[in-house]
């Protein structure tokens, strides 16, 4: 006999407002139907009615876990439309801040993932502490804890403070030590291994056919990372290796993100060494934006959740059409295929390992 359960929109592990209609046969999932749209704000339409640099703070709210990544994506699109190239130092500054943002985002994911598996907030609080230290550092740079709005055309709004390098190195050392602790804490725990290994397997061909992105794609054995394949900023100068796992299960997705955080630490260290002196400040906000040169722009960035893309058809002072490819959106659409045949308890292991931000799904 089939049972239908309504999970959400208010449920401890749907990370915001996601409604899943789950059809169960005993304890086995027959079908999962996601119902989304509870957080729809029509960002694309809002951007059409605002001047280019006004929309930046709206873009940040698409993904409230990693806001800077989105504002960078948007500002890069505007820069390309106007033919502005970011300053050399600004490229490094942005890269450093974005990698810090990536670590912060993955840390929050790690905590939330352990919560989904049934832990009582221990890992969550630990990773929140580390994330908080990163946010404090970013706050010193940008002036705000969560929504930074610090990307400007050609650079950033505030340059790095003089003691930034020292603080950052100290924080990175601390984080490196903590990551080792986390790995012992989780990987030496047989129950964690049991709950993640061989759960929610997504094969390579399916991953490509379903169009999943980011860590989920890389965990299925597809060696694709925008940071390498469409290198932007100074990623090609730094020794950057995309993290790939072949298994495609929840554990592989965990492993990819864990390794990515370590890779980000390396990237930041390298970038701090190579960063040139000089000026990183971009153009200040004006009531009239510079003239637009391109009529259509496509910009790709590797956001913490996967590949983000902006397709913008430009007009004089405001975008004519702004289309955002949100990584969580397409990762959610894969849930139905991954969860089929899994146990009901594993639904949340799978859902957690996809790293969804509902605001990003609904836009």
């Amino acid at each position: 006999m089939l049972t239908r359960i309504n999970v959400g929109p208010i449920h401890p592990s749907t990370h915001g407002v996601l409604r899943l209609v789950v059809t169960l046969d005993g304890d086995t999932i027959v079908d999962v139907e996601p119902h989304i749209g509870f957080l729809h704000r029509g960002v694309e339409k809002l951007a059409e009615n605002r001047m280019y640099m006004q929309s930046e703070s709206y873009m940040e709210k698409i993904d409230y876990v990693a806001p800077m990544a989105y504002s960078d994506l948007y500002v890069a699109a505007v820069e390309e439309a106007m033919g502005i190239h970011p300053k050399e130092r600004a490229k490094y500054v942005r890269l450093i801040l974005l990698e810090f943002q990536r670590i912060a985002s993955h840390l929050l994911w790690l905590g939330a993932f352990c919560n989904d598996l049934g832990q009582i907030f221990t890992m969550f609080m630990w990773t929140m502490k580390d994330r908080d230290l990163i946010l404090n550092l970013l706050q010193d740079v940008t002036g705000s804890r969560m929504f930074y709005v610090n990307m400007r055309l050609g650079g950033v709004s505030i340059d790095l403070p003089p003691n930034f390098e020292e603080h950052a190195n100290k924080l990175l050392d601390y984080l490196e030590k903590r990551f080792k602790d986390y790995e012992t804490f989780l990987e030496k725990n047989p129950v964690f291994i049991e709950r993640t290994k061989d759960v929610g397997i997504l094969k390579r061909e399916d991953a490509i056919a379903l169009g999943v992105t980011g860590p989920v794609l890389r965990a299925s054995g597809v060696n694709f990372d925008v940071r390498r394949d469409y290198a932007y900023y100074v990623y090609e100068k730094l020794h950057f290796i995309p993290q790939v796992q072949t298994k495609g299960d929840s554990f592989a997705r965990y492993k990819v993100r864990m390794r990515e955080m370590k890779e980000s630490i390396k990237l930041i260290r390298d970038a701090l060494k190579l960063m040139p002196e000089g000026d990183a400040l971009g153009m200040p906000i004006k009531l009239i934006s510079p003239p637009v040169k391109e009529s259509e722009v496509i910009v790709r960035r590797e956001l913490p959740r996967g590949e983000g893309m902006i397709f913008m058809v430009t007009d004089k002072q405001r975008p004519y059409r702004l289309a955002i490819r949100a990584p969580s959106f397409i990762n959610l659409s894969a849930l139905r295929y991954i969860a089929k045949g899994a146990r009901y308890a594993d639904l949340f292991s799978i859902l957690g390992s996809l790293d969804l931000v509902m605001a990003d799904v609904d836009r």
Partner: protein
Amino acid sequence: MKIKKEELIERLRELSRSGYNYLVKITAVDYIDHLEVIYFIRNMQNKKEENVRLDLKNGESLPTVIEIYKSADYYERELSEMFGIAIEGRDVKRLLIEKWDGLEAPLRKNFQWGSEYKSG
């Protein structure tokens, strides 16, 4: 590349056989007198990208490509909800919002909304 609506399925099938097996996004742009639908597809082997564009007249429907790209599912649903494009060949459910209070196709340029939300 710009193609006609009739060729769409054929061309995409050809492309997906020749290695363009990853659908990045389907989106549309409203040019008031017509719509342009764009398929961004990528070859996962050599990371090359291709844009397949086609023009749609207002009120014209679009054939589904879900048999070629599984990931087209959500994009097509989004397209039909946001632009009011009917999708042929599959049952399209509303994706985001069940009802827009009589207002359809919010990303069309003729979508009416309160002037107080406009700025700048």
